[in-house]
Each structure stands twice: as C-alpha cells, then as structure tokens.
C-alpha cells in the first residue's frame, strides 16, 4: 500500500492521489479543471499537489478543454483538462474532437459514477468513452485501481508520440477513493502501438533528392506536421538550401517566416493568389506534414495536377488518402528533412520559376481598401501586427472571417504563435485558447483576435482570465454578424440573411435591410460586459483612434477587451469556392 508522511501523520494515497501524482511525474505544471460530484476526490488530490501543479479553474468545461489546447499548442507539451461525469464530460467533447482534427496532444480526465452504478443511468452518468471513441486518439475507462499508473503512462505516451492527439481517461469515483492499491507497476502494455520506426529510409531520401534535382517548378506545401514535429528549423534550412518557395496551410503558419522572400504565405480557400497559382503550375509538390484537406485542395483532381507529389507524413493513413502520392514516405517530417538537408543540392536551374512566383506575388498581394474611412478588419489586424513585431506575441482566433484575415494579415515568423481551430473550425476557440497560451507563456503578449459571434460563445472565460491573473487581450472585430456566413449568403444565396445578424430581431439588419456599412445600435455592449468581469475595455470606431486604442490595450496590465466597430459587408478575398480550383478563384 502506498502512503506518504504528512503533517497529519501517515496518509494512505487513494486512486485520485495516484492519478494526480502521475501528472506531476509526467511533468505537468498546469491543469484546467472544473469540479463536480464525480471528480471531487481528484480535486481534493490536486490541492495536495498544488505546489507542483497549478490548477486553473475555467468557467465552462469547454473553455477548460480549449485552454488545455492553447497551452499545448504554445508549449508543445500535452495540455491537461479535467471535468466531472455526465454534462461536465460531454462539455469537453468539442474540445477533444478539435484536438483530434488538429493533432494536439491533450489528456482529458473525466470523473465517472462509481463502477457499481455504471450502466444504470445514474445521476450525471454518460458513457463518455463510448461518446468519444471516434474523436480521440485513444481512451480508457479505468476499472481497477492497479491500472491507474499504467493507464496514465500509456495516455501520455500515446498523446505525445507519433501523430499527437487527445487521450481520454474516464475515472470512476470509487476508483478515485480506493486506497487498496497492490501494485504501482506502470509498465506500458501497447503491443499494437509502435511509432518508433517512422523514419524515412535512405533510399526514399535519395528518391526525393533526385526528384528535386529534376524539377523545374518545385514548391513546398507544409503544414501542422512541421509545427507538431518541431521541424521548423529543418524546414528553413531545407528551403534556404534549395531555394524552393514555401506555401503554408493555416496550421503551418509560423513554420516559415512570412517576411522571407521565399514565402508564398498561406494556400487554400482563402490563401494567396500566388500560393494557389504556384501550386496549380508546379511540377513537384513537396507536401510536408500535411493532409490534403479539402479547404486546401478544393477539387482534388485539379490540385497540383501537373505535379509529381512527394508526401511525407508521420501518419501512414494520410498517405494516398485524398491524393495519391508518387513518393509516399512515412516519417517524422523533421527526420526526413534533416536527412534531405545532408544530400540535397542547391537548385540553380529554376530562375524563371522563381521569377514567375515573385511576379505573381508582386501582382496579387493580399489587399484591402486602404482609403476606407472607418476601420476595416484587415487594417486593424495589420496595425496590431506592426505594433507587436518586436515582442513575443501569440495570436489566437475564433472561426470565421476574422480568422482568415488574421491568417492573411498578421505577420507570423515563429512556430507556435498562431492558434487556430483549423480542422474542426470551432467558434469560441479564441478566448479560452488564449487563456491557456498565457498560462504557458506568462511573459508573452497573448491576443485573441476574435469576431463578435465567436467571442460570445466562450465569453465566460473572461472571468477565468481575470480571476487567474491571465492578462489576455481581445481584439474584438465587431460587425454584429456572422461574417463568413454572411459572405456566403452574399456570394451564393442572393444575399438572403438567414439568422446571421446577432442583434435584436426587430432591427432592419435582421432582415438584411440594413442601411449603410455598419449595423446600427450595437448589441450586446461588450465594453460593459468586459468591465463587469473586471477586465479593462474600450470601444473604437474611428480609424484615427485605432493606433492609440491598440497601444492602450497592449500596455494594460490585466485582461482587456478592445471592441472595434467594423463594417459587415467586407468579404474575405481571394476565395476559391468549395470544390473549386485555383482557376475559379474570386479576387473581387
């Protein structure tokens, strides 16, 4: 039986202590946990380890889940969140599914009703393992206290190795309280999980080098795998050595500095004209740590149709899934790039291709109406980017127009500085993710660039930011609408407003009959809301006031919301319609 000496004398460790102790042993320093009946013993245990492990109380379990993700995305270490059984657990599901699609290492711990009650529809019982099977990398329902050390060991191993992902550990209350532990054996038993050999073979590296040598119009298409695999340096070396232009996915932003002349910025549905044109015209596509997502490829048959495709990914099931590769390589992308860097030769025979890319870049920059009288979303983001270039800044976003504009107009030069719910596209991601990012990087400036729709979905986390002393800033681009849906309504549905106005239903905008560029009578009053939570706040609507307002936000000590009035008729461009190709790109 395991025990510890304490001031009160000898105390026997229970299952909850064992679990929390394993978190400490795994190097976890912060957990986002919301208590409830079935997780109380775990929270009691957390207080006993509070000198080694900080517990941050979110105001909604989903907020805790996204905060854990923000923490993981910034630190590269697994994010840990905890909730009670039933509704606490189901509130975590969206954050878990989100982590699965974006390959974020996360451990989600849920309380569960006692083992004797499982299956009886007990109070606050949900079969959360059943619910989460398809959205986790792996999952456990612990039914024996002696399994706890092994399960926790395996959970961290699975979440962080290979292609990272979320692991759920469901812990019944009686196991948490059980003190009859016979064995502390934490040896893993994973005969079906082996990711150690995911390294490109020397002959594959030679094949890729040969393909590069032969190519006349090569391009790098890189994504989240570069970030997750800490391969940004290897990518930069590879790009600079070969001179090949680099296009990034949303998940890949920051992998390569977008200020570099070789950068083609983001590709895909709202990617740059030059990235999409270059991919259309390339004869060699080096796909590194990417998954040919439909938001990147559009119509698959037309995506890089003239190109030989090299696809390097750590997950074998991504190879040939959406697009067949000529050279498919299962490998840690960093390993493969370092091996390539040993033998690859500078390309000296592609000047006309580089000139062509540069010409496209010069002719079709991301642009907006500079002369616009008020504040355009793009302008606000660009201003923020310029004001924060000389300090460590992390940006999180919600989902929608502001997310794409942040991807287009904020200048990212390091990995782990842009946090976006990219695969699942979860509105409400921005604020809690920023909160987790701030916990992971207390000295960084963390800004949630958000839309008013997304922001309201997890606005309660302002309370966590205030109470836990996490000085997150929110740049709220407030257009009173669900802008991206409005954009699709305008482009494809004759402008018919279908529940995309966020103010009272008797306003003209609710029927799509608003006059002018801005919604009148803005609702809700975000400044009052923020102040009610104890945060600093201001509202700005004049272009001339923006710079000062941003400076004030940046220099404020605590959490701060800057509510920016922006027009709602602005569209994110360029745009490739769903299932279209680069040739269908809308630029006006």
């Amino acid at each position, binding site marked *: 039986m395991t025990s510890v000496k304490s001031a009160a004398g000898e105390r026997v460790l229970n299952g909850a202590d064992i679990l929390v102790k394993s978190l400490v042993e795994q190097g976890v320093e912060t957990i986002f946990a919301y208590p409830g009946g079935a997780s109380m013993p775990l929270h009691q245990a957390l207080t006993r380890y509070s000198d080694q492990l900080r517990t941050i109380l979110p105001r909604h379990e989903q907020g805790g889940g996204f905060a854990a993700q923000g923490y993981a995305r910034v630190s590269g270490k697994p994010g840990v969140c905890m909730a009670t059984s039933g509704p606490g657990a189901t509130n975590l599901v969206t954050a878990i599914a989100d982590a699965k699609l974006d390959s974020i290492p996360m451990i989600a711990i849920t309380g569960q009703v006692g083992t004797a009650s499982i299956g009886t529809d007990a109070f606050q019982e949900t079969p959360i393992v*059943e619910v989460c099977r398809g959205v986790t990398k792996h999952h456990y329902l612990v039914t024996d206290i002696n399994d706890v050390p092994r399960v926790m060991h395996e959970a961290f191993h699975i979440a962080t190795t290979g292609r990272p992902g979320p692991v759920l550990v469901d812990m019944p209350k009686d196991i948490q309280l059980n003190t009859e532990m016979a064995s502390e054996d934490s040896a893993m*038993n994973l005969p*079906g999980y082996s990711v150690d*050999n995911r390294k490109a073979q020397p002959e*594959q590296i030679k094949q890729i080098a040969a393909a590069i040598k032969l190519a006349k119009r090569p391009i790098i298409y890189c994504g989240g795998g570069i970030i997750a695999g800490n391969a940004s340096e290897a990518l930069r070396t590879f790009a600079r050595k070969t001179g090949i232009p680099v296009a990034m996915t949303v998940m890949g932003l920051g992998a390569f500095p977008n200020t570099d002349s070789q950068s083609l910025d983001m590709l895909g549905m709202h990617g740059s004209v030059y990235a999409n044109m270059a991919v259309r015209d390339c004869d060699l596509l080096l796909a590194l740590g990417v998954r040919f997502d439909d938001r990147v490829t559009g119509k698959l048959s037309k995506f890089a149709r003239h190109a030989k495709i090299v696809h390097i990914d750590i997950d074998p*099931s991504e190879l*040939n899934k959406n697009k067949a590769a000529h050279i498919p*390589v*299962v490998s840690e992308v960093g390993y493969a790039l370092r091996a390539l860097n040993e033998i690859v030769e500078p390309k000296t025979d592609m000047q006309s291709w580089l000139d062509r890319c540069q010409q496209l870049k010069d002719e079709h920059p991301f642009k907006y109406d500079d002369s616009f009288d008020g504040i355009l979303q793009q302008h606000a983001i660009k201003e923020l980017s310029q004001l924060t270039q000389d300090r460590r800044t992390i940006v999180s976003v919600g989902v929608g127009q502001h997310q794409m504009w942040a991807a287009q107009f904020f200048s990212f030069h390091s990995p782990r500085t842009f946090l976006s719910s990219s695969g699942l596209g979860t509105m409400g991601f921005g604020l809690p993710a920023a909160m987790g990012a701030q916990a992971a990087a207390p000295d960084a400036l963390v800004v949630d660039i958000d839309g008013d729709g997304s922001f309201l979905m997890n606005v309660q986390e302002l309370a966590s930011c205030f109470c836990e002393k996490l000085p997150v800033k929110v740049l709220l681009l407030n257009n009173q609408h669900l802008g991206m849906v409005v954009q699709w309504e305008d482009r494809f549905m004759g402008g018919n407003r279908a529940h995309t106005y966020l103010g009272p239903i008797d306003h003209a905008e609710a029927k799509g009959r608003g006059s002018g560029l801005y919604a009148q009578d803005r609702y809700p009053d975000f400044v009052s809301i923020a102040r009610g939570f104890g945060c600093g706040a201001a509202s700005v609507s004049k272009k001339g006031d923006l710079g000062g307002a941003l400076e004030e936000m940046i220099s404020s000590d605590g959490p701060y919301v800057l509510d920016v009035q922006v027009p709602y008729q602005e569209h994110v461009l360029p745009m490739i319609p769903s299932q279209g190709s680069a040739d269908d790109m809308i630029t006006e």
Partner: protein
Amino acid sequence: MRHVLSALVQNVPGVLAHISGMLASRGYNIDSLAVGETEDPNISRITFVVVGDNSILEQVRKQLEKIVTVVRVDDISAQDHVERDLMLLKVKSPPGGKRSEVRELVDIFRGRIVDVGQDEIMVEISGRENKIEAFIERMRPFGITELVRTGRIAMVRSQSTTTDGESGPKLHDSSIRKYVN
C-alpha cells in the same frame, strides 16, 4: 474486389465497438465479421470480409492499424489460405417423403444433421462461402425456417517446402507494414 482481412487485437473491453464504429463512420462496407479468442488469451482475432478496390482496402487497413488496440492486420486473401464459414440451418422435412432427400443432400455437402424435430431438422455445415451458398439454394425448395451463420474465418496455409532460406519478416510482408514504410 473481395478481401479477407485478419486483425489481431488486444482482448480489452470496447475494442470491437471501436473497430465497428470506425468502419461505420468512414462508410466502409463490411460483408462479414467474425470475432473470437486466439491461442493467447490476451489477444483476439477479428476476421473481416471487405469489398472494394485497392485504395479502399489500403485505407481500411491503415485505419484499422491506427487503432491503438489493434496489434496487427493481415490481408489473408493475398496469400494461400483456408477460409471457412459455419452455418446452422433448420429445414422443413416432415417424416417420410422428403426427409431422405434432404438427408442425401446433407451427405453430399458433407454436412451433419444435429437435431431432428417433428416437422423439421437442423443441419450443421461448414466450408467455403460458395459451398454454403450452394447448399442454401438446394435447401430452399424444402422450406428453410431458420438460418444462422458465423461469418468468415480464415487462416494462412503453412509453407509446404523449405525453399525459403531467409528467416524473419520481409519488407513486402503485409503483416509487418505497420512498423515500416
């Protein structure tokens, strides 16, 4: 194209739910699925019959292999193998006339009569799918009252000669693809 996949899985709760859920959510069609223990009590074997082209098969297989509790996946139909299906069937055969006819067919198909009731008999028969199908067709005119099948199980034949001097797995051996490229 019809493939028989054989998966070794950890014998833990939920593994079958995980696999069937994955197959259903990704829209793969499974013709037959059979689960049972193996010589190792910690490991179970699931045998699938999947119909689809090679790219579908490759995805099914990779998605199976991605499941943590799946230890290994073999494409048995790519190798020399034995395949069996077990069926129990009740067929109407009132005493007299037709009963001997049914018995004769059972003998020809090398089945066995395992129960005899007032008006019907129960037959046990095993074999390859096409034999089972043929037997069902022969029984239909008599009136099948109940039928139950196990689903396909399969096993690779042993090497009959020792010409293969190499020991250990080869790179193209499908069973070890989980660990190498």
